């Protein structure tokens, strides 16, 4: 065993890759099988009109079904794709501001050192713990137009509620409502951890200068928690493009396609209509959209995210 004299402290000094390999082997094998190979196969499938039923590895399979970029062309020139993208954008435009406002409210309320704050934290987190399937079922019942809880509660105030999930105009806002309800505790606690990290000295100085609570929130809290807000925006946008279980359970894409979104389409093309090639191409388009959005956010962060504190 030769020991090089100059080695970084804290690292085992012999073996190199040979020592590391047994430790890396399981996750490397996993990466190959569950991530890299599927990525490659998916790219290949996206260039075919394969239906998912024929033997994949039969000789001549790929050549026989090869359609080049045909799937991508077909998707991008279909009316449906743009409609689906429009639906997703509608969801995002409604969801992100509402979610951010609700999460900020959660974070503000939980940041106060008051009695019962632990109980509130537990309560706000219960929707997060619930599986999406259970949450969707619960809300499907709550939103039921005639016998549901929400419209009957609204009726107390003399408001006649819409048909929610059965109404083309209200189905997507209803999905947004449920998503905000489910996610506000999760993102709220992330924002809270950003809020707690702020140096108390800033607040004391501001109070001496006569700043009220409102001014302190806008001038100190909000600017200094921009890293947490940035993180929440990145994660929530990625999640928004992958919107799926709530759609499947509550509307199944309806009414009249008003809540069809990308993952729901991918799932149905692949596993209901047996158009694997088309579905694979669709998933790559989704991948590119997510990457572009994340990239734009990363680039844009210098303008507004404050890493000074």
């Amino acid at each position, binding site marked *: 065993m030769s020991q090089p004299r100059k080695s970084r402290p804290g690292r085992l000094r012999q073996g190199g890759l040979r020592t590391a390999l047994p*430790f890396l082997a399981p996750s490397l094998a*996993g990466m190959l099988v569950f991530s890299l190979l599927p990525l490659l196969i998916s790219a290949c499938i996206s260039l075919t009109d394969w239906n998912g039923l024929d033997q994949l590895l039969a000789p001549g399979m790929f050549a026989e079904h090869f359609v080049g970029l045909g799937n991508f062309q077909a998707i991008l020139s279909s009316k449906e794709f743009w409609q689906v993208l429009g639906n997703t954008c509608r969801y995002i435009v409604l969801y992100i501001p509402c979610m951010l406002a609700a999460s900020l409210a959660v974070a503000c309320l939980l940041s106060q050192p008051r009695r019962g704050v632990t109980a509130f934290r537990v309560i706000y987190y219960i929707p997060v713990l619930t*599986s999406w*399937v259970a949450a969707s079922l619960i809300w499907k019942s709550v939103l039921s137009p005639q016998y549901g809880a929400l419209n009957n509660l609204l009726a107390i105030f003399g408001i006649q509620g819409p048909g929610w999930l059965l109404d083309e105009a209200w189905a997507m806002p209803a999905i947004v409502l449920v998503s905000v309800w489910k996610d506000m505790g999760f993102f709220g606690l992330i924002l809270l951890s950003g809020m707690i990290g702020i140096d108390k000295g800033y607040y004391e100085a501001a109070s001496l200068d006569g700043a009220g609570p409102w001014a302190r929130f806008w001038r100190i809290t909000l600017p200094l928690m921009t890293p947490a807000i940035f993180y929440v925006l990145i994660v929530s946008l990625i999640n928004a493009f992958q919107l799926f279980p709530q759609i499947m359970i509550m509307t199944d894409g309806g009414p009249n396609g008003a809540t069809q979104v990308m993952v729901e389409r*991918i799932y149905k093309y692949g596993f209901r209509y047996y158009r694997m090639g088309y579905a694979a191409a669709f998933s790559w388009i989704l991948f590119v959209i997510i990457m572009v959005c994340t990239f734009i956010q990363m680039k844009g962060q210098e303008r507004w995210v404050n890493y000074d504190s």
Partner: protein
Amino acid sequence: MTRKRMAGAAYYAAAVLLAVIALVPFAWMVSTSFKSRGALMSIPIEWIPAEPTLDAYATVFERFPFLRTIGNSLFIAVCYTLLTLASASMAAFAFTKIRFKGSGVLLGVYLATMMIPTQVTMIPLFVVMNQIGLINHYSSVILPAIFRPFAVFMLVQQMRTIPPDYMDAARIDGASTFRIYRQVMLPLCAPALATLAITNFMDSWNDYLWPLLMLTDKAKMTLPIALSTLNGQYDTEYNVLMAGSLISMIPIILIYIFAQKYFKNGLMAGGVKG
């Protein structure tokens, strides 16, 4: 003084309002689950069922092997969690405590794979699982746990903070690399591992898309899949659906209550789904 009191009142008004919003759907779930079929369509609606009954619960267990489903969910989530912890902690150990060429690049590859959405890999994975006959096999939903780049990343961050002295001491005592990993590193990372265990357990317990593709046999389904199947079959029988939902929530709520502090720690960590 009155100003302070008003602020307090405003605080509690807002906090309670938000709590009500968070809880009302669950109250509705509990209430509905104790209703008979007929009471589902009574106007005005009953927040407290006039004639509470356990029929819906009986129906859930009658029409679906629900006990078995709960067992499936538990078994899968536990195996999934253990596999993630083992594989990710080993990889993180190699990345932080063993020097080898290309470790930085490799870690970069791990991070890059976090960008790949599950929807891209699910079609080929479905095809592969189908070909090797793993559909309706528990392993089809457990095995992917072996590669969770996020878990690796989180443990790398954690292990970097552990000072080298511990390892040097063990090394001088003649401990093998595996013993150092097992008996020095793992105990030192216990809090991070606990946090990771809980977030992974929850991910697996609540997972929908992948088990939906893999577990189509009633006897093999996990709770979310069983619930969505019930949704397809008893579309308007909300009492049955609510009873099933309520049962599915109990275990995770119990875990939450008993392991609250690890949940808190896991927050920043649990970010991206899938």
